[in-house]
């Protein structure tokens, strides 16, 4: 049962990511990205990362995807029937992307990964919170400042003046 669910999630991620980059309609790309992000959250659940899966759904699906759809709506003509997104250099780009994929697969299969013992985790929230406030306190503060500055800068940039 779990194996079929894993295969379903993997197929969902790959197929919808495929449609994100190949769809001629930008709105279809955005909706397809929704399924990619949900499938990725499902993969996180398989990897015992419950907090990251929740964060993925809340921030990516609830925040970034809505922002992207707003961007699509704000920057295209409303009266055009389909919001087309043309592509260029498909052959060279496809060859380059395929070459990168082949290189990654070669590295993946030729590296002797140090696979440790199987570990089962219950809840990760407490441990992540402890790490954030001990080992990763400085990066945590820096990224908080960065997020604040980026959001204020975005609001300032997109203000009508």
């Amino acid at each position, binding site marked *: 049962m779990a194996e079929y669910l894993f295969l379903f999630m993997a197929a969902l991620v790959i197929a919808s990511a495929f449609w*994100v*980059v190949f769809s001629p309609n930008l709105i279809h790309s955005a909706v397809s*990205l929704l399924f990619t992000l949900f499938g990725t959250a499902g*993969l996180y659940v398989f990897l015992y990362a419950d907090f990251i899966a929740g964060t993925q759904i809340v921030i990516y699906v609830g925040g970034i995807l809505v922002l992207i759809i707003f961007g699509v709506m704000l*920057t295209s003509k409303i009266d055009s029937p389909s919001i087309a997104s043309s592509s260029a250099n498909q052959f060279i780009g496809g060859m*380059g992307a395929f070459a990168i994929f082949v290189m990654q697969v070669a590295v993946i299969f030729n590296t002797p990964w140090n696979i440790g013992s199987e570990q089962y985790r219950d809840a990760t929230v407490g*441990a*992540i919170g402890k790490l954030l406030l001990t080992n990763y306190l400085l990066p945590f503060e820096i990224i908080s400042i960065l997020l604040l500055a980026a*959001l204020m800068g975005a609001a300032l*940039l997109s203000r009508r003046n």
Partner: protein
Amino acid sequence: MDSLLSYLIIAAMLFSMGIYGVVTRKNAIAILMGIELILNSANINFIAFNRFGGMQNLDGHVFSMFVIVLAAAEAAVALAIVINLFKNVGSVNVDDADLLKG
């Protein structure tokens, strides 16, 4: 089936499709979607290595949370820039943004 290699292969496919989207798309927002795919593939790798690498702690989870926060900041700033581009140039086609060309 549920092993490290399958997660790495999935992440590699996501990464190359994101590269393809970034390279071939002309619409700036579609390029942004390709970047999101690339960031997601990196996140899958972080968490897969954290589970299968025999680590006791959760460093990979913290790193992937940082990546998600950076993706949120990046999306907000990039969309503000795209909206300004649309205001100034009249389209979001990145080929039209050649105002600096002499």
